[in-house]
């Protein structure tokens, strides 16, 4: 049997095709649609060695580069935004481009973006920044300055009569606020990597942003999709956005032009957007190859620039005249744009900056206070990592444990009856060995290695053993008060509360529906059952995003429901900014996760109910038990053994439910709805990739869950014993 299994497995693996043969030049990119078409057209001009161009998903792009290049499995050259250069250089994923960079042909901001001193680390291809879109069907004239947008409120009507907001942009996003901030002379990060969004200029910039919203000149809670929608549907006269907006306006009957961003009246200076420079970078192996450098020169050539311009992307070259229209307008805007800092520190600046902006816009706290808090958070994340310590004590401990284990082992082996026990167990081992090996290799080994990471700090070459420093830091709340936002203990409380609420609703709703559904006299039983299982069948990330959309303050379906209740019942309900307060944001997460999870409990309970013997219920009825008594005293105790494992597993899943928290509230407001797993995720991926710290969180989560379930099992055993006696 086992041999048959193994053969079947190998046969299955052999069915799956092998990797494609390697091509001489490997090029990676994350392009799609128009940008991809442009790249294909440019590569068609290449006459050298064959190029294997690989299109990767954007989200996983950097992670793949970081994993593949050090292992020699990566590309020779790849296209990425210059803002990652700091990180790529730190991880030694890139090498200087040398003669691939043609001198004297690129625009000054683009060159500044890819150069550090005299060394160029990338070859600029195209400039990406935002500019001002003008809907010429709605307005003919652009106000003289940003503040002038307020004068337009209520003066513009769309042909359909819908209200028009003067200026659509992502008012809560630091990327856009940075453009306003630049007119006040500030930048998110100074050249010494210090947090820049502080001081009087920052206060004025954010308060100007808030003023625009409060005067209804700009939407209060707009993400990129909403800006596209507002402008694309003629419900915004102006929009601050990038070339991607033009791409999605393609099929629409809408007339627009692109202009430079306006000046800010308060200072008389122009808004300067952040500049992203799409560039070609070389992996260390790729940089050494002449043909790779030649390919990079082709990608950055004037011909390529014109091809890209045809597809709507402005070139980073200053010697190629862009065709009139959007592309030229964006190219001109790029000349005054400020290159995004490519320092690694930037990744740690976004989250505090965004949180502070949202707090100010909600008027939660004073602007100065919010910004000081943001700076404190930034500095906290950037604090120097613990020094390496000698692993000797740990190795010693490991050695002692090993010896003790060996001693125990010999004791067990020598104990009388062991041989008999082993012989008795032998038939069972024939059934389980392969699974033990599979689980050991696939589950236990990565888990142990992951747990071991928690004893280290730093990335790449700088990874070092730091003992329990990460744990000490987490458990002392990084030296701050124990119950502040983001401290381990507060997050733990939220996580426990989250788990308890979810499990209560899952079990409650699941049980109630199962009891109703299991009545044999019920009509349409099968139909109900299928419909109620649907939330389980839809991919959870799809529905999590759908729920987030439903909770949108201005345009969400929940808001619509509130309006509808207002109209029909004459109530006076106001739309709720769901993610502005802990209670409502938590409720939104909870609603989503309850929705995702109740079908599982319902099905489990239905199954358990089928096993409740009828005669027992009959007997109870004959004895005069009411329905409630029968449920409480007969049914529930009988289904409890079936439900308990499902509830335990459900509680564990909920405790670690990353998707919902991350996709629905994203931790809003101010990180208060984050649970331990999403906090760990932030340390691993948005706070300078502190994997060791994230792993320490994971180990703590594991220890707590393990402890609680062991405790639960022990009390269950004790209770069973008590009942037996």
């Amino acid at each position, binding site marked *: 049997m086992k041999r048959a*299994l193994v053969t079947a497995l190998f046969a299955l693996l052999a069915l*799956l095709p092998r*990797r494609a043969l390697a091509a001489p030049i490997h090029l990676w990119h994350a392009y799609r649609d128009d940008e991809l078409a442009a790249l294909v057209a440019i590569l068609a001009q290449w006459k050298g060695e064959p190029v294997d161009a690989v299109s990767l*998903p954007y*989200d*996983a792009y950097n992670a793949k580069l970081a994993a*593949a290049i050090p*292992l020699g*499995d990566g590309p020779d050259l790849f296209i990425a935004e210059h803002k990652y250069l700091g990180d790529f250089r730190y991880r030694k994923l890139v090498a200087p481009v040398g003669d691939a960079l043609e001198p004297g042909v690129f625009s000054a901001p683009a060159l500044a973006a890819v150069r550090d001193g005299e060394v160029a680390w990338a070859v600029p291809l195209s400039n990406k920044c935002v500019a001002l879109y003008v809907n010429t069907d709605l307005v003919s004239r652009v106000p003289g300055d940003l503040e002038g947008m307020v004068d337009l409120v209520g003066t513009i009507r769309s042909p*359909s009569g819908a209200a028009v907001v003067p200026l659509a942009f992502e008012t809560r996003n630091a990327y856009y606020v940075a453009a306003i901030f630049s007119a006040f002379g500030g930048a998110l990060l100074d050249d010494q990597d210090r947090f820049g969004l502080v001081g009087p200029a920052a206060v004025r910039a954010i308060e100007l942003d808030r003023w625009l919203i409060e005067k209804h000149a700009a939407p209060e809670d707009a993400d*990129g*999709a909403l800006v596209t*929608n507002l402008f694309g549907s003629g419900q915004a006269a102006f929009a601050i956005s990038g070339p991607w907006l033009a791409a999605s306006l393609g099929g629409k009957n809408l007339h627009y032009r692109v202009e430079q961003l306006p000046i800010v009246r308060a200072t008389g200076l122009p808004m300067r957007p952040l500049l992203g420079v799409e560039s070609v970078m070389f992996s260390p192996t790729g940089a050494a190859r002449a043909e790779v450098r030649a390919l990079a020169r082709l990608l950055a050539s004037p011909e390529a620039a014109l091809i890209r311009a045809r597809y709507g992307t402005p070139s980073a070259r200053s010697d190629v005249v862009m065709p009139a229209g959007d592309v030229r307008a964006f190219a001109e805007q790029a000349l005054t744009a400020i290159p995004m800092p490519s320092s690694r520190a930037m990744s740690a600046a976004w989250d505090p900056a965004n949180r502070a902006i949202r707090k100010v816009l909600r008027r939660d706290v004073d602007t100065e206070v919010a910004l000081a808090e943001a700076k404190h958070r930034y500095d906290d994340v950037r604090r120097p990592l613990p020094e390496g310590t000698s692993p000797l004590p740990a190795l010693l401990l490991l050695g002692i444990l090993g010896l003790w284990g060996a001693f125990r082992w010999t004791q067990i082996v020598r104990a009388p009856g062991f041989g008999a*026990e082993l012989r*008795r*167990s032998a038939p069972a081992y024939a059934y*389980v060995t392969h*699974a033990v090996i*599979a689980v050991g290799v*696939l589950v*236990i080994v*990565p*888990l142990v290695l*992951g747990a071991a990471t928690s004893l280290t700090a730093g990335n790449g070459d700088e990874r070092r053993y730091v003992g329990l420093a990460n744990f000490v830091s987490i458990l002392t709340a990084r030296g701050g008060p124990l119950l502040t936002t983001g401290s381990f203990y507060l997050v733990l409380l939220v996580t426990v509360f989250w788990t308890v609420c979810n499990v209560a609703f899952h079990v409650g709703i699941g049980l109630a*529906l199962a009891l109703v*559904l299991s*009545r044999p006299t019920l009509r349409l039983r*099968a139909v109900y*059952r*299928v*419909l*109620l*299982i*649907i939330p*389980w*069948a*839809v*991919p959870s*990330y*799809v529905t999590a*995003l759908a729920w987030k*959309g439903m909770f949108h303050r201005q345009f*969400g379906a929940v808001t*619509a429901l509130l309006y509808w209740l207002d109209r029909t019942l004459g109530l006076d309900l106001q739309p709720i900014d769901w993610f502005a307060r802990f209670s409502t944001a938590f409720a939104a997460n909870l609603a989503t996760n309850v929705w995702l999870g109740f079908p599982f409990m319902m*099905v*489990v309970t239905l*199954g358990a109910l*089928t096993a*409740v013997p*009828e005669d027992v*219920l009959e007997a109870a*009825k004959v004895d005069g038990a009411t329905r409630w008594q029968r449920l409480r005293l007969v049914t529930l105790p*009988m289904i409890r053994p*079936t439900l308990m*494992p*499902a509830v335990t597993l459900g509680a564990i899943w909920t405790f*670690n439910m990353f998707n919902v928290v991350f996709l629905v509230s994203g931790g809003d407001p101010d990180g208060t709805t984050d649970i331990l*797993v999403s906090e760990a995720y932030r340390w691993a991926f948005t706070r300078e990739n502190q994997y060791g710290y994230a792993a320490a*969180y*994971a180990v703590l989560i594991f220890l707590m869950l393990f402890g609680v379930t062991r405790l639960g099992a022990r009390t269950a055993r004790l209770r069973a014993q008590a009942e037996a006696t």
Partner: protein
Amino acid sequence: MSNAWQEKAERVSPLESVASHAILVLAVAFALYPVLWVVSLAFSGDRPLVPEVLPIPHHPTLRHLTAVVTTRHGGDWLFGRQLANSIIVSLATAAVGVIIAIPTAYALARFRFAGKERGLAALLATQMFPTVASAIPLYLMLNALHLLNSRTGLVVCYASTSVPFAIFQLRAAFEAIPVDLEEAAMVDGATRFGAFLRVVLPAARPAIAVTSLFAFMSAYNEFILAATLLGREEMFTLPVVLQRYIGEYDQQWERFAAGALVVSIPVMALFYVAQRHLVAGLTSGGVKG
């Protein structure tokens, strides 16, 4: 299906029946509302931005659906390949998970052996460790085995969750099958293994089918690992393709919704087919005795 929560003698009053239906209709509305929004978005042409209660597509169009389904690359029908990838990977995950789990689950249900309790506790414990920390070592291991960028590698990853899950599920199912059945077969001269093959496995068919369905579904819907491990467009599974419609700047929600619809339909169909067994298969074994 014989049902225990039967109250034949007790007449169901009309009021009670109405109440039951009211509860169920409310629950169904709660369950379907977000799904209907996704459906409506997938078929919407131009949406005016006003909050709306009812998920009804505006200017209905099949544009997004056809755009998603007919994605091509070169002369290849890219979407078709990606659908095939999804199905191959998910089928393989289900097969590997269940095949590894069946004998183990049987041993756990029927034999007493040294290390059984500890093994079970350890298996449950592995479910408690957040993947955020074990994903990176797994990635490095796959790389060492040259399994990155391959469907095999993805199946190996998915098997790491489907095997423990299948073991738990099937153990409960085997425990529910009366021992007498096997013993009778063994009295008739069958070996233990023969009895397992010819008596226990057929009796556990619904549970095996349902466990396979869940393993299939979890692989079919997964995208974080798939996006990290797969490097070539023609290797992508459908959730990765979906994810790409939501870029950093450019978010094509209608396409995303249309894709989500296409992705969900096969799973829904499977659920529909399996739903009769779902209840029996999932928990047939939970109650001991």
